[in-house]
């Protein structure tokens, strides 16, 4: 145990003094939380501009735009009636624009009284942009209300939104465990792969092989260090989230267990990847090749359910999926049963990878 602690102390000093590791363990997750927190919480303006060309001189056009503004989702900005709209959209790189045709008020009343034909407004836009979808949704909702008003009807069926967790949770609360899971992976696996490259290039492995320190002890000290650093990172990141964005997440014993098991798993995986790594540069390349797809496919940034079925199947084979899900179970949903299932999968994988890493990695020359 003394040797593990001695190796841990020496490694921790080097890690913290290099600055690089400390940045990715402590500073980077805080930057991500600040960035995504600003995007996903309501601290800033969430209203999007809706450039509109209104050629209607009657009251319906003006009332329609007033109703749109009252939704607070869009803010109508006016495009001059004299310009060619499609050219204006192109020249100003607009992703969305609303068009109300001339004589729209008259046509609405004529249609209501006799022809019953559609009298449309037009939403121009780029379907690949999320703002287009939002604009379509808002304009359709206001048009629906206008139809009820003109027909003298009122809606019967409605939707009552309710959060499946505690009602005070925001999207960023669900997002935080994903950031923490990603930090566990990047800190332990990316760093460990580079460390293996450096230790091989600079012959530290050969030097260590002349001592009484075993590979398993060396690996254990790295796991211990990453677990300590990542728990500190979890606390700091969560504290920033709570203080800056008023997040409502829980750090409990189960969350800490997930961090420890995650550190063991990804440290072992990093050491295994280190087998094929000849230097720190190739270490970074290998870690990126494995880590980045895993980061995006494992639900760190968005729900797995939003991905195509075949990608969801791939996600089930990735260890980070179980870490992210488990952290959400523990920190957000408080579903300890589901957390234990995820923990079981992670622990089994961690045991297999640790054993493989300690056996397969060689410090000696051929």
């Amino acid at each position, binding site marked *: 145990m003394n040797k593990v602690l*001695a190796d841990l102390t*020496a490694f921790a000093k*080097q890690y913290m003094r290099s600055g690089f590791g400390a940045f990715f363990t402590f500073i980077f997750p805080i930057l991500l939380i600040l960035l995504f927190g600003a995007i996903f919480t309501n601290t800033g303006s969430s209203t999007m501009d809706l450039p509109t060309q209104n050629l209607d001189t009657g009251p319906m056009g003006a009332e329609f735009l007033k109703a749109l503004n009252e939704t607070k989702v869009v803010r109508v900005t006016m495009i001059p009636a004299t310009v060619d709209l499609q050219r204006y959209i192109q020249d100003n790189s607009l992703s969305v624009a609303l068009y109300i045709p001339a004589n729209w008020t008259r046509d609405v009343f004529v249609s209501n009284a006799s022809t019953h034909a559609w009298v449309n407004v037009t939403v121009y836009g780029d379907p690949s942009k999320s703002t287009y979808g939002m604009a379509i949704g808002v304009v359709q909702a206001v048009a629906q209300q206008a139809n009820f008003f003109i027909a003298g009807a009122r809606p019967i069926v409605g939707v009552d939104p309710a959060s499946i967790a505690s009602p005070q949770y925001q999207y960023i609360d669900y997002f935080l465990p994903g950031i923490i899971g990603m930090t566990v992976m990047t800190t332990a696996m990316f760093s460990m792969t580079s460390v293996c490259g450096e230790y091989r290039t600079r012959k530290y492995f050969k030097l260590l092989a*002349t001592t009484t320190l075993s590979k398993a002890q060396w690996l254990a000290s790295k796991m211990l260090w990453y677990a300590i650093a990542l728990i500190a990172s979890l606390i700091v990141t969560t504290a920033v989230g709570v203080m800056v964005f008023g997040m409502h997440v829980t750090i409990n014993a189960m969350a800490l267990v997930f961090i420890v098991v995650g550190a063991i798993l990804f440290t072992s995986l990093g050491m295994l990847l280190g087998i094929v790594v000849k230097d720190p540069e190739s270490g970074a390349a290998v870690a990126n090749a494995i880590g980045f797809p895993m980061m995006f496919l494992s639900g760190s940034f968005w729900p797995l359910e939003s991905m195509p079925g075949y990608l969801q199947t791939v996600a089930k084979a990735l260890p980070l999926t179980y870490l992210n899900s488990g952290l959400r179970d523990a920190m957000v949903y408080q579903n300890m049963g589901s957390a234990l299932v995820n923990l079981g999968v992670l622990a089994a994988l961690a045991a297999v990878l640790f054993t493989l890493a300690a056996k397969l990695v060689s410090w000696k020359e051929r």
Partner: protein
Amino acid sequence: MSETVIEVHGLTKHYPGAKAVDGIDFDVHAGEVFSLLGPNGAGKTTTVEILEGLRSPTGGTARVFGVDVSKDYGKIRRRVGVLPQEFEPFDRLTPTEAVTYWANLFDRRISKADAKKLLGQVSLSERADVQGLKLSGGEKRKLGIAMALVGEPELLFLDEPTTGLDPKARRDVWGLIRRIEGEGRTVILTTHYLEEAEVLADNVAIMHKGKIVAEGPPAELVARSGARTTIVLGGAGKEGLEEVTRRGIPAVLDHDDVLVRVSDPREMKTILAKLSALEAPLKDMYTRRATLEDVFLRLVGAKMDEGVLQA
């Protein structure tokens, strides 16, 4: 005869298309400095890495403290200290921290004061608290030796301990090795510096292309090889050579110098008397004793460049 620390018999290490070590035999006894001498690629480092348990031999046996190193190196690890050829210190640890850390890896706990005392022994006290990346080449080597010594080993492997060092740093390391020998430890020194082996080693094994071509104490190797003392007539030129040979003394021209090899020391006086009567202009006249370089030249035809053996 003191205890045999290392026994090597028929040791081979083959790679596809290359025989790095090709059936070598040698013994090393307790308390001696044994040098494996040879140019780069001679097989020195491969040999010591087999003895350090870092490589597996293809054939033969290598025993250290009676233990077969290819099977049970773990049993003797605590008794051995190693300075590898390509030693680099940990960039972000100070020498004090590195030595303390390394002691733990040999199941020893040493205080900061003990670490500094050890660093003092390798003349690194003033740099004890500077991070490794700021050390000079010589200071790094000294730290490597301190780390190799921290487990208080009975046997020390020093692989090319002075390669790349300036003359002063090299002499510092030599002093250190002499002190280590004085403490009764056994030292295996690999080097491609002839002078280093000559000055430090009790016994030398000259390696060439994976084989040991000569072995013994440096002076004995020189004597055994038949290499002779040489009288150098500096700047005598062709004119001097003709005059010397006219007097019945065999000589050769080396650049502008005339070299007269004296095969029997008893003839020295007579030859010197004949040469003193030379009329050819001389810049200098001196005698040069045969060295390991002469041995090496005779055995393998290798040359030397600035004191380093060339393959």
